[in-house]
């Protein structure tokens, strides 16, 4: 954390930056009416948040998960299923999605968190793959075709015909995510996570209950991702196994976090701010066959970032010799 290194005046700079961004977010929809740009901002906020949530496990704890989309999918499906089968509003459905994701993380986390490095990464991919196949074959939950959110225009259902309200929902959720990750990172948990990442055995010998804290990171990360999954469901209006439990989506989340700077608070948001507009812009510029090109851009970005910016954009600002924040 930078607090140890930076003087107080700089610390408040972080707060000032956030304030500016919040104001900009608040003013934006009034300044720009074009829904396309609003869509870009919403997507940026979403990917930034997903990256920030992923960061709890991948950055601070140092366990790289390539299957995080599974929590998004769980959140999305939970929200829509509760809506369809029980008529439960997304006001409750979205948090429920986060809860289901958290519970799954708890169940899967026990054996998985014992693994490290490659093995952990492979296990997360396997979990994602299993979930994908199960959802494809679960016709009660829509099977391969997926689920659609009903068309409605009601605050109670959090479904709107206009895209505008979603912008505000995304902004609020994004701020919540930022607040959550920031608080966690500066708390005892943040220090313990980084200690576990540094040397788990040494950390334990200092009294760090490693198992408990690893699980905490995993569950919190899953919960946040699940909540955004719920948002994704009502925003896009449709989920299916291919889009919700997608390995490519998982990789995009990882990329966003790495591009911005792994293990930092602001990193994922920066990464998303750079990547998402580029990808969306590319898709539009290339017209009909855009789908192939935006993923191509992601692929190239992944390779280039790995080769030239592995510490992320944040690294460009770090002073040498100081510990990264």
């Amino acid at each position: 954390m930078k607090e140890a290194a930076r003087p107080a005046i700089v610390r408040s700079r972080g707060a000032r930056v956030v304030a500016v961004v919040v104001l900009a977010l608040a003013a934006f929809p009034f300044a720009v009416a074009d829904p396309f740009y609003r869509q870009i901002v919403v997507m940026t906020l979403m990917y930034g948040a997903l990256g920030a949530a992923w960061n709890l496990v991948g950055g601070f704890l140092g366990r790289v998960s390539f299957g995080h989309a599974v929590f998004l999918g769980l959140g999305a499906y939970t929200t829509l299923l509760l809506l369809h089968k029980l008529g439960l509003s997304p006001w409750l459905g979205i948090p429920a999605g986060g809860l289901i994701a958290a519970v799954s993380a708890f169940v899967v986390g026990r054996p998985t968190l014992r693994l490290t490095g490659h093995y952990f990464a492979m296990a997360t991919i396997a979990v994602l793959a299993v979930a994908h196949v199960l959802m494809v074959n679960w016709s009660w939950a829509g099977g391969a075709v997926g689920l659609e959110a009903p068309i409605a225009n009601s605050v109670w259902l959090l479904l709107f015909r206009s895209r505008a309200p979603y912008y505000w929902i995304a902004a609020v959720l994004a701020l919540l995510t930022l607040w959550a990750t920031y608080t966690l990172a500066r708390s005892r948990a943040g220090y313990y996570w980084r200690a576990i990442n540094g040397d788990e055995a040494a950390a334990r010998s200092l009294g760090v209950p490693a198992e408990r804290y690893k699980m905490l990171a995993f569950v919190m990360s899953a919960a946040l991702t699940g909540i955004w999954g719920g948002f994704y469901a009502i925003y896009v209006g449709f989920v299916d196994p291919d889009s919700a439990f997608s390995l490519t989506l998982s990789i995009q989340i990882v990329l966003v976090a790495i591009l911005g700077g792994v293990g930092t608070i602001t990193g994922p948001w920066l990464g998303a701010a750079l990547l998402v507009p580029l990808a969306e812009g590319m898709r539009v510029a290339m017209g009909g066959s855009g789908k192939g090109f935006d993923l191509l851009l992601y692929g190239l970005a992944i390779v280039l970032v790995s080769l030239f910016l592995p510490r992320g954009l944040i690294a460009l600002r770090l002073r040498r010799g100081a510990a990264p924040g």
Partner: protein
Amino acid sequence: MLEALATGLFNGLIYAAVAVGLALIWGITDVINFAHGDFLMLAMYVAYWLFTLGHVDPTLSAPVAACVLAFVGFFAYALIIRPLQRAPAMIVILATFGLGLVLRQLAFIAFSPDYRNLPDTWLSGSIRLGDISLGRPQVVTGVVALAMIGVLFKLVYRTRWGRALQAVAEDRLAASLVGIPSDRVNAQVWMLGSAAVGVTGALLTSFFYVFPSVGAVFGLLAFVAVAMGGFGALPGAFLSGVLIGIVEALTGYLVEPAYKTASIFLIFLLVLWYRPRGLFGRW
């Protein structure tokens, strides 16, 4: 049921062939090549276009595909892997994934997402073994895969060059101290592993659909095989590959075809969770 077993066996040999190339690369250069499946896809397209445009049968284009893939493997090593040798493992994994994604998207853009297949090749038809009827392409591919694996094993375990490989796999620094050029060895391994996938891919076109994401499934199954065999163990990867083929076929026959892949991943998870060293251990 016997037919399912036999099909599974031959499928397994193919998975094993892909897995062994991956295991070779992982075992010696310490890199999990997430683009391996997409290398396979490239080989399939090479064979496809050679057939469609030049009427070259897949069996003949196999060596060509092998050469093309050897080049691809070389460039992947030189341009991406070598520069990243001191980077954290996560970055390298990510980079190979990115490479795979790029290859897949280029294929998507250049060749469209259409599923293609080859109508009649030299191998078309079926073979009867007693009560069982198997596709001839599958059997031949399986046999060739087995032969290729045999050659690879001989290369790695019985030749001087192979011993150099094993030395580098064990201790890069020590190997270089005794004069083994680990950089050159790494490049050779990437070329060899990719070439193996090239042969397999070319033959695969004689009975499998060709499309941009075809590599994804094979790639994932190859990882599973390599991990289950204990990352870096060639025999383990081979056995796991065959095992996967058999389990997959049996699941399809006994349970339900839809759950075939899920069962593989479930087993994989169980192995990772409870026997992380793999079913068969290291070298």
